[in-house]
């Protein structure tokens, strides 16, 4: 999109709630977005908690060391407290931002602190989707006036949007997560990964990613496709994991560890089917969008996020979540029918272009623009209070 080039250059502040050095969807999203905006000529600063002192990109500002607390079924590395609050305020007052973009501002984190501290154009992105919890009713009244300060709200999926409407009674614009579709589009077939292969990418040790379901379904698939292999890419301890797999099936698994972007493109191009057996906890399913962009035929569980990303089964095949029989049946019928597989592969790849950063970043920037109208720069809320003005601060 060329029109982005002619736009005024802005100063944009992004706030990441989670530790920058721990891998995660939100962090990856913010890094990609920051790099995209910088490539368009904007000034971008990202405030995030950081653990170590490894090399960070220029745009990153550390807010301090995160602490680990359990949140939404996983351990989140987040940061809050008076020192962090002071750091956030300092960042805001020095940044001279035109717009602040806060990620996941509804959890106790520096995003929430920034929302409290700042005044002016603010955009919030809500990533998580969660079931309605009693606890939310208790914290709702505290959160509402804070979240209300956001000029515009973005939800990454319909699931995240309905979570937001249910919990905080506020609506949001849906803008999906972005992927670099072009980088993934031109992979080469790697013969080591080709043949009757099932692909899986992700932290396979986490139960909610559902790799165990593939193991459960495998005997049924072997009966019809004796040469079937499962390729697993992603970080984790494969040795310990292999020990838990029945010994007859162990030979079918190949763990590749973490793979680079180029390898990912080749991987997606080579495998017969990409399997996403996640049992829940997903709000968007960025990996599915990537798999589609890489030209893989996708089989995914019918959890709401996946079903909506795959257009209810139009761009990939859905099976009944947590049902190994349904998974095996779906895989078998697709492996047997090359024509159907190719058809859905082509449809899926075209659909994935909707998630390309060129489009997604443009839509996010539209929201920035809308929220900047009629408001000045981002300032500290405390500067505008009447008593501060009265004492001449």
């Amino acid at each position, binding site marked *: 999109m060329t029109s982005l080039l002619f736009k005024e250059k802005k100063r944009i502040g992004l706030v990441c709630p989670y530790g920058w050095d721990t891998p995660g969807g939100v962090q990856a999203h913010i890094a990609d977005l920051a790099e995209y905006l910088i490539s368009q000529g904007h000034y971008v600063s990202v405030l995030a908690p950081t653990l170590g002192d490894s090399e960070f990109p220029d745009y990153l500002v550390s807010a301090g060391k995160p602490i680990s607390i359990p949140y939404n079924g996983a351990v989140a590395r987040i940061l809050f407290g008076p020192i962090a609050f002071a750091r956030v305020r300092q960042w805001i007052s020095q940044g001279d931002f035109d717009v602040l973009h806060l990620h996941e501002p509804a959890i106790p984190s520096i995003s929430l602190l920034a929302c409290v501290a700042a005044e002016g154009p603010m955009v919030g992105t809500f990533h998580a989707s969660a079931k309605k919890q009693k606890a939310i009713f208790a914290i709702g009244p505290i959160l509402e006036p804070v979240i209300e300060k956001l000029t515009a709200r973005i939800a990454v999926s319909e699931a995240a949007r309905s979570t937001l409407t249910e919990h905080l009674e506020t609506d949001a614009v849906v803008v999906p997560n972005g992927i670099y579709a072009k980088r993934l589009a031109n992979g080469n077939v790697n013969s080591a990964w080709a043949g009757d292969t099932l692909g899986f990418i992700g932290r396979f040790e986490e139960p909610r990613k559902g790799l165990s379901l593939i193991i459960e379904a495998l005997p049924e698939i072997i009966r019809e496709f004796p040469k079937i292999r499962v390729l697993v890419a992603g970080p984790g301890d494969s040795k310990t994991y292999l020990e838990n797999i029945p010994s007859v099936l162990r030979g079918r698994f190949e763990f590749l560890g973490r793979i680079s972007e180029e390898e990912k493109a080749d991987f997606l191009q080579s495998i017969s089917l990409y399997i996403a057996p996640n049992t829940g906890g997903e709000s968007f399913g960025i990996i599915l969008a990537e798999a589609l962009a890489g030209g893989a035929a996708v089989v995914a569980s019918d959890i709401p996020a996946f079903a909506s990303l795959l257009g209810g089964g139009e761009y990939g095949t859905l099976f009944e979540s947590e049902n190994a029989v349904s998974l095996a049946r779906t895989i078998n019928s697709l492996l047997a029918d090359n024509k159907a597989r190719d058809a859905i592969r082509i449809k899926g790849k075209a659909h994935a272009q909707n998630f390309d950063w060129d489009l997604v970043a443009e839509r996010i920037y*539209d929201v920035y623009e809308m929220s900047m109208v*009629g408001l000045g720069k981002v300032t500290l809320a405390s500067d505008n209070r009447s008593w501060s003005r009265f004492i001449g601060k």
Partner: protein
Amino acid sequence: MKTSLFLAILALLFFAWYLSFLATRLDRLHHRVETSWANLDALLQRRAAIAIEIARSEISDPASALLLTFAAHQARDASIKDRSQAESSLSGALGILLDISESVDEVIARELLDELRTLNEKITVAIALHVESVTRTQLIRSQFVIRVFRLAGRAPLPVIHEFEAPIEAESN
């Protein structure tokens, strides 16, 4: 006696702070309703301008040119009350154009249609923001404390204009 007096003063101070907090909140929302409406209004005006430009270009046949020009002028001149109808008919007329736009290959025409498409996306966002700020304000203003202490002052209660739904459906 002294402590209870002290506590009473403290409670009163807290209540005063709470009222000022609510008033700030409400003030922010009122401000947002105004700015989001102004923004939406400006975008709609721009759309009407583009519609007229498209009507005069070679993309549209005489019949749709007539329809577009009529709809655009109506949308521009309409009073708040009639605007709903006017903007919806403009949306409809433009929607037909966007559908056939795939087959247009002239450069200037393409640019016009692309501009219209981006504008339509912006309008969708602007509508969402405006509707959100209006419903939010209505919600807050229905609160007991705010009504009793008349924190809204003389600001009129914002209402959502009806035409805002159909455009959304069309621009997707």
